[in-house]
C-alpha cells in the first residue's frame, strides 16, 4: 500500500475515533449535568469517578471539556481532509497531543488518586491516547 493511501486510512481512523470519543464524552457530560444523583447500582457499580471532586475544573465538568475537545478535533480533521495543508496537520497534531497527555493524566488520577475506574472515562481516555499516537505517526510519515 502506498504511503498516501496508508496515511488517508490513519486520518479517517482518527476521525472515526474522535466521533466515538465525542459520543462517549457527551454521554458522560449529560449524565453529570442532568442525570440522577450519585448512587451505587447493583449491576453497573458506583459513580465514584464521574462524581468525584476531580471530575470538574473550575466547576466545568471534565466530560464537557472532553466533548468540546473531540468536537474541535473532528473539525480540524475535516478541515485537513479538505485542504491537506501542513498547517492543518500541525493543528491536528497539537490538539491530539494535548488530548493524549491529558488522557494520561486522567488515567493516573483514576489509578492512584481516586483508586476507582469508570468504564466510559476509560474508553474516552483510551481514545485520547490512541488518537495522539496515530497523529504522531501521521506527522512522521507526512513530514
Amino acid at each position: 500500500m502506498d504511503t498516501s493511501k496508508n496515511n488517508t486510512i490513519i486520518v479517517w481512523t482518527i476521525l472515526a475515533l474522535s466521533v466515538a470519543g465525542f459520543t462517549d464524552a457527551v454521554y458522560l457530560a449529560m449524565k453529570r449535568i442532568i442525570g440522577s444523583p450519585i448512587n451505587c447500582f447493583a449491576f453497573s457499580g458506583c459513580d465514584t469517578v464521574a462524581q468525584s471532586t476531580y471530575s470538574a475544573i473550575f466547576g466545568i465538568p471534565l466530560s464537557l471539556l472532553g466533548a468540546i475537545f473531540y468536537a474541535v478535533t473532528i473539525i480540524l480533521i475535516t478541515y485537513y481532509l479538505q485542504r491537506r495543508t501542513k498547517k492543518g496537520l500541525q493543528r491536528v497534531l497539537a490538539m491530539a497531543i494535548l488530548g493524549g497527555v491529558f488522557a494520561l493524566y486522567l488515567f493516573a488520577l483514576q489509578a492512584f488518586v481516586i483508586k476507582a475506574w469508570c468504564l466510559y472515562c476509560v474508553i474516552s481516555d483510551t481514545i485520547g491516547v490512541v488518537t495522539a499516537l496515530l497523529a504522531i505517526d501521521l506527522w512522521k510519515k507526512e513530514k
Partner: protein
Amino acid sequence: MSKKGQEIFIWLLIVIGLGAIVLGMYAAVAKPAVVIGDLVIPVSSADWRKGNENAKVTLVEYSDFQCPACKYYYGIVKELEKEKGDDVQMVYRHFPLQQHAFAKTAAIATEAAGKQGKFWEMHDMLFDRQEEWSVSENIQQSIVEYATLIGLDIPKFISDVQSVDLASRVERAITEGGTQGIQGTPTFFINETQVRFQSYEELKQLVEDELNK
C-alpha cells in the same frame, strides 16, 4: 456540485451529525428514573430506628456500608438528625451490594453491635472509616478494632459476628430489598414515598413539606 458547495455540504453534515449525537445522548440520559413504587414493608420494631418514634416524618434508607455514595448521604442524614432529630424518625435497612466485598460483613458487624445496643455507634464508625476498612487486608481485625473503640464486649461481639442468626438476618434484609425493587444504594423513602435529593437543603425541604402536610 462545486468544490465549495461540497465543502459546505460536508460541514453541514458534521453539524447535523454532532447535533444528532447530543440529542440522542440527551434522550438516553433524560429518560425518567425507574420508579420503584411505595414502601412495601412498613416500618416496625424489627427495624433499626433512631430519632422520634412518634414523629410525623420517617426517613427510610436502604444502604450499603461500603458504598461511597452512601457515605456521602450519611453526612446529609446526619445533618438532618442534628437539626430535626425531634421531628423525624430515621430507619436504616441493609442492602449490601454484591460488588462490595466487605459490605455484608459490615452489615453483620452492625447487627452484632446492635445486640449490645450500639447499632448506630457501629453504623457511624463504619461510615466514618469507610475508606480505611474498604481496602483492609484483614476485615475481621478492623471490625474488632472498631468494636473495641465503641466499647463493646469483644468476646460476645466476636461470637455474634460468627452466628448464623445474624448472617441470615442480613440475607433476609437483602431479600426484602429485592421485594421492594431496590436497584441501587442509597434509596430513600419519606414515609411511604420514594424521594431523591442531592444536598441537605433538598432533603430538608422534602422533610418540611411532609411536616407541613
